Every structure is written in structure tokens, then in C-alpha cells.
């Protein structure tokens, strides 16, 4: 399709120009802090499949990527499993709201990264701290958007449901949940994005595996190509993960003018 081809061409223009600029300003220099893109490409290949350097890092990418993906989705799913029901309760039940909302609002301004030292004290240095940070990072966006979603249902829809014979006990499933879905979905998407941000910080604290771990380790060894390769992979995985969620949203929220 010519239109899609054009969009793709435009979308690729900026990265290509950037690559060219990167190449021209680094290739062939005897001394450069940043390795040229081709070298990073070669390193990335070796990280993924081996066969170039055959060193300690060759073909280790799948293991590290899998570790990070596991923590991201594990922490994210745990956050969703807690934040969704909690958000619905806070949004719908005044007593629960009065009980929990002030505390949660008070805890919310503490940046996730500020929890890191405490997490390391409690969970020790290792993957459990990273997992906890991911959980925390994903938790608040999901919670806040779920509360917002179930609280901002158009009152008219409750009247419409009531006059059509929906029993009060069925209102939640028939009206509140579907009406709140776009907000809930926004929360899940933000939460997952945040999980990818936080995982790297979490893995920089003495974890053995994970993308955050190798880029930190490679920095100490001055293997800048590996650092950049790791960044590229994190970017790609985050992008794919978001694209997946968005595709799901387009299917589920076809009815919504903002998503469909």
C-alpha cells in the first residue's frame, strides 16, 4: 500500500539520518568514546548468536533478555492483579476509599527509585529487589487510572441500565467495568511502560542476569558496544511490548473513538 509505504518511509527517515550522523562522526577515528554503529551492530550480533568474538558475552543475550522480560511481566502482572481489584474497590466503595485513598496518595509521591535502597535492605541484593521495583512502578499507574475509570462513569448510564431492568448487583459488570475499560487500559499501558523503565535501575544493583545487569557490567569493563547494544535491545523490547498492548487495546476498545 503506497500510503503505508510512505508512513514507513517517513518514520524511518529520522533514525536513518541519526545513524548516518553517528557513523560519520565516529567511524575511522583513532579515539572515540562512542563506538561507530557498525561495530555496535557486530557486537549485537555476537551477543545474540555468538561467532564473532566468542568471549564471555557471546550468545548470552537470550538469557539476559529472558530474565528481564520475565521480571517485567512478572512484576507487571502482580501489580495488575493487585491494583485492578483495589482500584475498583476504592473507586466504588466509599468506605474503602476513605480508608485507603489518603495513605496511597501520601505514598505515591515517593519516586520508585527512592524505594531502591530500602528494597535492597529488605529483599537483599538480587533479582527480588528488581522485581519489587517493577511491581511498584507498574502498580500506581494501574491503580490511579482504574480508580479514575470506575469513578468517572457517566451517571446517565446508571439510569439507562436501571430503567432497562439491570439489577443493582449486576451494574458493576454491565456498566462500570465496560465504561471504565479505556481508563483501565491506559493504566495498564502506562504501567507496563514504567515497568521497562524501572527494570533497568533494578537490575543495576548487583543482579547477575538481565539487560540492566550486563550494561552496567560492560560499562565497568569499558565495553561500550555492549552498553549500547543492551540499550538498543531494551528499547526494542519495550517498543514491541507496547505495540502488543496497543494491538490488544484496538481489538478490545474498537467502540471507543480514542482507541478504535
Amino acid at each position, binding site marked *: 500500500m503506497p500510503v503505508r509505504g510512505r508512513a514507513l518511509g517517513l518514520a524511518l527517515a529520522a533514525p536513518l539520518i541519526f545513524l548516518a550522523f553517528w557513523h560519520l562522526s565516529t567511524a575511522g577515528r583513532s579515539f572515540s568514546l562512542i563506538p561507530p554503529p557498525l561495530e555496535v551492530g557486530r557486537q549485537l550480533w555476537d551477543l545474540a548468536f555468538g561467532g564473532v568474538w566468542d568471549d564471555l558475552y557471546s550468545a548470552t543475550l537470550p538469557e539476559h533478555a529472558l530474565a528481564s522480560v520475565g521480571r517485567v511481566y512478572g512484576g507487571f502482572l502482580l501489580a495488575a492483579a493487585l491494583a485492578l481489584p483495589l482500584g475498583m474497590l476504592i473507586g466504588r466503595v466509599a468506605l474503602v476509599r476513605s480508608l485507603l485513598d489518603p495513605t496511597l496518595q501520601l505514598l505515591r509521591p515517593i519516586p520508585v527509585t527512592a524505594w531502591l535502597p530500602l528494597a535492597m535492605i529488605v529483599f537483599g541484593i538480587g533479582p527480588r529487589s528488581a522485581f519489587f521495583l517493577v511491581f511498584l512502578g507498574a502498580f500506581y499507574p494501574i491503580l490511579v487510572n482504574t480508580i479514575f475509570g470506575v469513578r468517572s462513569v457517566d451517571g446517565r448510564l446508571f439510569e*439507562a441500565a*436501571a*430503567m*432497562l431492568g439491570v439489577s443493582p448487583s449486576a451494574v458493576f459488570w454491565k456498566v462500570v467495568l465496560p465504561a471504565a475499560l479505556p481508563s483501565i487500559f491506559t493504566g495498564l499501558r502506562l504501567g507496563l511502560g514504567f515497568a521497562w523503565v524501572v527494570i533497568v535501575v533494578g537490575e543495576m544493583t548487583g543482579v547477575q542476569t538481565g539487560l540492566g545487569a550486563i550494561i552496567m557490567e560492560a560499562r565497568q569493563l569499558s565495553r561500550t558496544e555492549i552498553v549500547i547494544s543492551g540499550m538498543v535491545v531494551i528499547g526494542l523490547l519495550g517498543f514491541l511490548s507496547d505495540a502488543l498492548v496497543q494491538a490488544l487495546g484496538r481489538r478490545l476498545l*474498537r*467502540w471507543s*473513538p480514542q482507541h478504535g
Partner: protein
Amino acid sequence: MADGMITSAALNILDITGVTKRFSFNGEPIVALEGANLTVRKGEFVCLIGPSGCGKSTLLRMIAGFETPSEGRLSMWGAPVSVPGPDRGMVFQDYGLFPWLSVARNVGFGPAARGRPRAEVEATTKRFVDMVGLTRFADAYPHQLSGGMKQRVAIARVLANEAEVVLMDEPFGALDAMTRENLQRELLEIWERTRLTVLFVTHAIEEAILLADRIVVMSPGPGRIVADERVSLPRPRDPTDPEFNALRRRFSALLGSHH
């Protein structure tokens, strides 16, 4: 009636006796409606007219069960009205459609929510989607429809739910003139076929004369019923007809004299 005798009271689907509704607004009491009396017979098409703030919506919302009267009694077939129910369908000016459901699912929402068998829900849905002329749009979502189409869905939705009384609160007020005329005509056709009881709120005198068997005139401050007159012009009615014009003058005067 045990002996099979039909009294005139037995034909009254709605009985409204001495109904007053007070709201408090910033601590000040507001009398939205005072001492309203109204009986509606089954199959009647009643229009409520009056300037804004005279309690038309309040009255309709009490019949629907969304509000409870401060004083007086409201009953349907002799039983007090307390909560909303499928026997009284409401058509809102702002439609109130479920945006996540297709046209067909919106129309079938009531029967499905009340646990009707699937085949029945589908047959009912199809019948009423066809009745309001939206067959081609059965799978569309509300945000893809024009205002007139949305209001057709809202009407089909209460018809499909077997509402006995259809409460319409300025349903065509937000539509352009052409769409409004079409919907008025279609509503009359549906009403003539189904013989539903309709309570239709409007502030347009012409719309009321075009549609109603009976016009109830209200005035504000506090909201009251000030006149209740039959319209016996044969249908279809022609707004350019001299008799139509005479009625228009008559109801203008009734409205004007109470300002």
C-alpha cells in the same frame, strides 16, 4: 376486577396525586413541582409543555423512579412507583446509549440483562432495529452514528424491552429540524402500531400539537400543572392547517398567561 367489570379507574395506567418535589440547592429549598395531579390512560400520547425550569423533567424522572416525591403518591396500575423498572422506559435527550455496545447490542440490552433466552433476544433485537430503520447499522457503535440515529436506537431499546410507558424528555430537542420531523413521524407510526402509552416532554408548542392526544401545560416558580387539554385534530396533522393554528394560539396564550 373480580366480576369482570371495567371501571374507568382500571384503565388508568398512571395515577399521580398531589405530588410535590423539593430539592435543596446550596442549602436553599427549591420547589421543583407542587401538588401535581395527573392520570394517564393506557395508550394515550400525552405531551408536557412548559418553559424551562417548570418541573417537566422532575415529573418524568419521578415516574421513571429516578427521584422520589417529597409528598403525594405516584402509582402505575395501582401499585406505587418506587424504583426504576423495565415497565417504564426512558428516552433521554442525550441518548444514554452504552458506547461499548453495537446498535444491535444496545437494543437487545434490556432483554439480555433480564435473562431472556438468546434466540428470543436476537429475534427481538432484529425486529426493533428494523422497526427504527437501522438494519444496515446494526453492527455500528454509537460514536459512528448521527444524533437522529442515536435517538432511534434509544427508542428501539425501550420498545424491545417491552416498556408499557415510554417517557421521553425532550428527545428531539438537540436534533436539526429535518431529522426532528422525520423522527416525529416515525414515532407516531410506531405509536399507532404498538399503542404504547407515551409521556413526551417538549417546550415546543408545535411539536406537542403535532403529536399529542392530550397536552398538559406547566408553569414555573414553583412548577405546577396549569392546564390539561385534549387535542382532537385527526392525524396526520398539518401545521399549516387553520385549526392547527388556532390550537397554537390557544396554547401560546395558556403558556403566556402563567408567566
